[in-house]
C-alpha cells in the first residue's frame, strides 16, 4: 500500500524569508517568497542548482506563481497587487496585466495548460480570465461572486472550466464557454486554500482549514469522497500527471500523498513542523512520482525504487 520516499535534495537558504509560491515545469522550479526576486532552480538536475533569478519581480514579495503545463509561460502575483507574466523560454519578463489591481487586488492565479489563458481571483471575490496571447491582454471573463476573498483558483487543462475557493468556504465552478456558474459547492465552512482539477478535468480536489481533502465530481457537483488525516490547515493540493495520486501539504509541516485507487494516504512526509505552504509533483521522469515542497526552504523528494507496488 504505502509508498517510500527519500529526501533527495534540500535547499535551505533559497530565499531570505518564507517561500509562499511554487511553480514547477520540466525545466525549472520557480519559487516566490517575501523577497522581491523569483528564483528558478533546475528541476531535472539532481543537485537542483539555481539557474536563473528574476530580480525585482515583486517589490513587496510574491505569494503565488502559476506555470503552464507546456513550461513556456509563468505568471506571478505579488503582495503589492500586481500580476506579472514571464517568458520561460527566453527567461524574461513578458509584461504585466495592467489593471490587475483596479477593483480589488489580485490574490490567487492559475494558467491554462497552453499558457494562453490566465485566471485570477481577487480580494473582492471577482474571478477574471485574460487572454495572454496578444497584447493588450483581452479580458475574456469577469465572474462576480459574493464579495468574499478569493484564496485559490484553478483552470482545467482544456481551459473550459474554472474553479475558485473563498475565505468563507465557498467553492464555485464556472463554465468558461458559456460564461456561467456551473456549480456552487457548499458545505465547507472554513477558508478554502486549494482547488485543483484532475488532469482529465472530471474531478476537483478541494483543501483548506477544514483539514479534509474533498473530492467533487465536476459534472454533477456531488462530493464523491473525502480524504481525512491532516491535523492542521491544508495549504495546497496537486494531482500527479496520471491523476492516480494527490499530494497535499499542511501548516504543521506534513506532506501527504493519497492514492485515488485505494482512497488512502500512502505516505506522510515532513521532518520539521515548519509550515509547508505549497507542494507539487514533478513532471514524471521514469517510474517514480517525485515531488517538491516549499515553506521555510525547498525540499525535493524522490520515490524509493522497488517500493510502492500497490
Amino acid at each position, binding site marked *: 500500500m*504505502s509508498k517510500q520516499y527519500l529526501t533527495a535534495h534540500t535547499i535551505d537558504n533559497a530565499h531570505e524569508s518564507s517561500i509562499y509560491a511554487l511553480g514547477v515545469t520540466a525545466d525549472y522550479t520557480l519559487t516566490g517568497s517575501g523577497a522581491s526576486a523569483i528564483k528558478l532552480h533546475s528541476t531535472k538536475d539532481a543537485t537542483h542548482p539555481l539557474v536563473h533569478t528574476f530580480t525585482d519581480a515583486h517589490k513587496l514579495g510574491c505569494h503565488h506563481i502559476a506555470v503552464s503545463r507546456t513550461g513556456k509561460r509563468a505568471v506571478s502575483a505579488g503582495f503589492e497587487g500586481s500580476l506579472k507574466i514571464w517568458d520561460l523560454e527566453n527567461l524574461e519578463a513578458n509584461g504585466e496585466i495592467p489593471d490587475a489591481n483596479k477593483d480589488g*487586488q489580485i490574490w490567487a492565479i492559475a494558467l491554462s495548460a497552453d499558457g494562453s489563458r490566465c485566471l485570477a481571483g481577487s480580494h473582492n471575490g471577482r474571478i477574471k480570465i485574460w487572454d495572454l496571447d496578444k497584447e493588450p491582454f483581452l479580458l475574456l471573463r469577469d465572474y462576480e461572486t459574493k464579495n468574499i*476573498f478569493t484564496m485559490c483558483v484553478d483552470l482545467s487543462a482544456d481551459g473550459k472550466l474554472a474553479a475558485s475557493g473563498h475565505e468563507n468556504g465557498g467553492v464555485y465552478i464556472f463554465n468558461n464557454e458559456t460564461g456561467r456558474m456551473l456549480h456552487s459547492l457548499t458545505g465547507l465552512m472554513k477558508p478554502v486554500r486549494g482547488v485543483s482539477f484532475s488532469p482529465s478535468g472530471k474531478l476537483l480536489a478541494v483543501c483548506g482549514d477544514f483539514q479534509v481533502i474533498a473530492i467533487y465530481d465536476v459534472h454533477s457537483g456531488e*462530493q464523491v469522497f*473525502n480524504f481525512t488525516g491532516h491535523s492542521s490547515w491544508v495549504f495546497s493540493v496537486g494531482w500527479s500527471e496520471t491523476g492516480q495520486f494527490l499530494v497535499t501539504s499542511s*501548516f504543521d509541516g506534513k506532506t501527504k500523498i493519497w492514492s485515488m485507487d485505494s482512497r488512502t*494516504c500512502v505516505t*506522510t512526509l515532513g521532518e520539521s513542523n515548519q509550515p509547508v505552504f505549497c507542494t507539487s509533483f514533478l513532471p514524471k521522469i521514469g517510474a517514480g512520482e517525485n515531488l517538491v515542497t516549499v515553506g521555510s526552504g525547498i525540499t525535493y523528494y524522490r520515490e524509493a525504487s522497488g517500493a510502492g507496488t500497490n
Partner: protein
Amino acid sequence: MSSNPEDPYDLELFSVIDLYQDQTSTEDGGSEYFGWSDEDAVEDISIGVIDESQFLDLTTPVFPTTAGGEVQSTMSTDILNAEILPPIQPVAENLPAVSLVLPLTTQNVHKIPRSTAPAPAATLITDSITDHTINPPVPELSLEDRLHKIFIENRRDKTTTITWEEPDNSSRPSTWVLEKIDQVFTAFLDVIDDKSKLVVKLRGTERRMLHLKSQPKWVWRTLVYPGPSARDNQKFGAFLRILELVREAIKLDRIYTKRDIYYKDVALFGSQRTVNNLVDDIASALGVPRRSLHITAAAKGLVCGDLDISKTDGSIINCNIEGEGVLIPSSTDIEKVVIRDCDTALIIEKEAIFRTLAESGDWKRLPGRPILICGKGYPDIATREFAHYLYLTKNVTGRYLDFYCLVDYDPHGLDIYTMYKNGSLLSRAAGMFYEQMAVPALQHLGVKFSDILEYCSAGSGVSQNIEDHGQDHTGFNLAAAVGAGEDEEQPRNDDDNNNHKRARYTHLPPQGLLQMTAHDRAKAVSMLQRDCSNAMVEHADDLRKLLFVGYKAEIQVLGDQLVRYLDEKLDGQRIGLAS
C-alpha cells in the same frame, strides 16, 4: 428642468455636516481641508457679480432683481424652503436677514447657475433659455448656495489680510497669543461692519506624508470670509470658534482638551479631526507648541508600577496603587520620576490586558516587576514622551530599564509597536522632535504567531516540545477514512484513535483566531509599502505571513494563559540577555 427633487437638498445638508471629514482625507497635501487655496476663485465670482448687479444696499438684502438676466424658473415650494432653511445658516450673522426675506419671495425664486469662473459674463448677456441650451449641464445651485451667492454679492470689494507665519518659539507668553487672536477678532468685526472681505493665511506643514523627509514642507492654508460658498463660511466659523475657545482658556487659565473643544460645538466642527487639524495649524502658524494655546490631547495613557511621579505642582503620584493604573500626565507636568524596584517596562496595547494585570497585581510577580504602560491603542504624545522619559531614567539600583511591547498580532498591533519604537512617522515628517517620543531599544515581546501556536493549540498543554520525525507513515493510514458524501468535519471518531499521536504536534490549528478583514489587508500592504522604502523591515515577514495565512489574533487569545505566557517570555528574555 423646472422642479428639483428633494434629495439634493438632503444630500447637501449631510455633506455640510460631513464636509470636514471628506476633505481632510483627500490626498492633496497642500489644501486638504480648505479645499481651495487661493483668493482667485473668490475674485472671479465676487467681482464679476458686483459689477453687473450694482446691488450695494446691504441693509435690505432683497432678492436680486438685477440678476434677472440669469433668471430661469422656480424650483420648489415654500414649504420645502421653510423646512430647509433653519439648519443652513451655520455661522454668518448676516445670513438670517436674508433667509427671513426668502419665504416672501419664493414665488419668484430665481435659479442662478453655478458660477464657474468664466461663466457669468456669458450667461448675463444671453437670455435664460438659450443660456441653458448653450451650457446644458450647469448644475443647479442648492438653496443654501443661492443664499450665499446673494450674500456674496453684497460685499464691497475690499480685502483685509492677516498672515500668521511665525518662527517656532516655544517660550512665547500667552499674552502674545492673545494679541494675535484679538487681532483676528478685531479684523473680523471690522469686516462685518464695512462688509468687506477677510483673508487669514496660516503657514502649516504638509499633513500627509508617507516617506520620511528631512525638511518639512511648508504649505499655506487660507481661510476667506466670506468664502466662495456657504461651506467655506462654516470652515471660517470653526476657525473662529477655536480661537474663541483658546482665548477663553487662556483668560481663565484653564486647559481644554481637543475633545472638550469638539464637544463644545459638534454640529459646527463635524468631526474630531477638524478640530485636531485646525488646532495643529493654528499652533504651527503661530510657531508655538500646542500647550501654549492651553489645549492638550485628552489624557489617555495609563501607567502602573513601582514608581513615583513628581509633578511640577509639587504633588507626587504613586503608581503602585493596587487595582488600577494612573493616567499619564503631560510631560511638561512631570518634574521627575523615581523608579524603584523594577528593571523592566512592559508597554501594552490593550487597556483590558493592562487592567487585568494591574488589578490582579500579577505584574508584581512577573520577572523584572515590570512597569506597565498602556496607550489604549495608538499612543498619544504624552504616553510616548513618558515612555521615552522612563527610557532615559535609571532605577534605584542605577540600571536602565529593559523595554518590551505586547501588542495584537495584526497590522495595527505591529504599527503601534513601530510607533513606540520609532516615533510616529507623521511627527517625524513634521519635524516634531520625534526622537523625544521614541524608545529605540524597545523589543517586540509578542503576541507572535509562534506564541499563538504554542499557547493556544488544542493539544498544547500536553507537550509541545516532543519532536515528531514523521517516521511513522502507517499510523496515519488509519485516519485516512473513506467517508464518502459526508460533511467535512465528520471524522471525529477517527480522531479519537489518533489523539495520542496528534497531541505531539505543535501546529494544531489554534483556537481564537480571527480572519483578516479587507481593512487589515489594506493596512498590511500599506505598511509593507511604507517600510520597504525605509530600513524598518523588522515586521515585513510578519505582515506577509498575516496576509498569506489570513489569520490575526488579539492579545486576548492567550486567555487565562496570559500570566504564564508573560512569565515565560519575560524570563526567557532575561536569560537571553544574561547569557
